């Protein structure tokens, strides 16, 4: 049977700002941390899915990022940018993971998808949506990691360049440049698929 736990902290409220919740987390208040997780989990999983092209890996990375955010909560400087801090942890984690296991993961993922689908589906079977959306996601996956992260944060998550710069640990001008160049590359990759009629839609 589960042990009863005496409430040591006043209940955390859904509308409390991130910084106030992090102050509670520093005292060991896991209920406050649960509110933070609920608030940011969808955005983080979406962001990591766009970067990895693999929802399972993205969810695992997101969980690890939250665990690290909890264990390193004393390093957080209250600035009203908890999300940027969290995404930075996740992005750094993704980079180190990618460096360490890049080739191995690619091969294993391809084998896993091939086995689970009987070898009939494409390797990027996680991609969903219309034909155009699949093409856009496929083109996104072909971008360099740095461009991809900047574009996803700017165009999909709707972040400011200052927030992107803070998350990726780069100057704001570099963030603008990466978004601009990344979109130009995307446009190039989609040229074969995207007709003039599709543009006009």
């Amino acid at each position, binding site marked *: 049977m589960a042990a009863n736990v005496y409430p040591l902290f006043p209940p955390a409220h859904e509308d409390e700002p991130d910084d106030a919740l992090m102050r509670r987390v520093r005292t060991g208040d896991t*209920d406050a*941390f649960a509110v933070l*997780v609920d608030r940011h989990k969808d955005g983080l999983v979406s962001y990591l899915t766009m970067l990895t092209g693999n929802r399972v890996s993205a969810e695992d990375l997101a969980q690890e990022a939250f665990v690290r955010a909890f264990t390193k909560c004393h390093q957080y400087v209250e600035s009203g940018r908890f999300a940027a801090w969290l995404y930075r942890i996740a992005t750094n984690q993704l980079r180190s993971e990618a460096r360490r296991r890049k080739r191995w993961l690619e091969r294993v993922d391809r084998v896993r998808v091939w086995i689970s689908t009987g070898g009939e589906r494409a390797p990027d079977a996680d991609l969903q949506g219309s034909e155009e959306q699949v093409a856009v996601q496929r083109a*996104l996956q072909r971008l360099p990691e740095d461009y991809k992260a900047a574009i996803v944060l700017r165009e999909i998550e709707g972040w400011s360049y200052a927030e992107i710069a803070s998350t990726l640990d780069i100057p704001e001008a570099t963030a603008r440049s990466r978004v601009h160049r990344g*979109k130009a590359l995307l446009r190039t990759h989609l040229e074969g698929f995207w007709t003039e009629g599709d543009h006009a839609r």
Partner: protein
Amino acid sequence: MHDDDPIGRALRDLPRARASEDFTDRVLTRVADAVDARDPLAGPTLPTPANRPMPGRTLMAAAAVLLAGLGTGVWWQQAQLAEHAQQLELARLAAEQARLDALHRQEAAQRIAEDRARLDALHQRYQQYQQDLQRLSEGHRSPFLAPGTVGFDLDGRARLLTPGELPQGNDYAPVGYRPAGP
């Protein structure tokens, strides 16, 4: 700006992945595991999805405790009660520690205030003494100067004054000075 940008529009139209239903619970479980792994001798385990207090779970817990007491033995229930008592004792000790800390802070502040008052009084007395000493060294008669008290010669040496050495007619004449005359 974005509306004129087909690439941006296409990106924003992409289907967005959502976290799984049990995402938060799994994160909290991993957090609890991480904390336990970091310090195995830590106190009570952090609340996890399995032991977070819930109304339904409380009823189930009560029923299970009852069954445990009746069927499987009272020792299990006693272990739970002991754990609860331990938690209460820890909380009580923490409160007592906080109270003592506050008391010590209050006492320390009071001692500091008393010491400061004593120091001020000593300083005032010291200043007064310095002024008197200065006046005496300049050979001026102190308002409190009387035969038998300490005075200074013109060469600066201190000794007891005699009645004949008291200045006459001039409170501020140097000690030992006598006006010319018969």
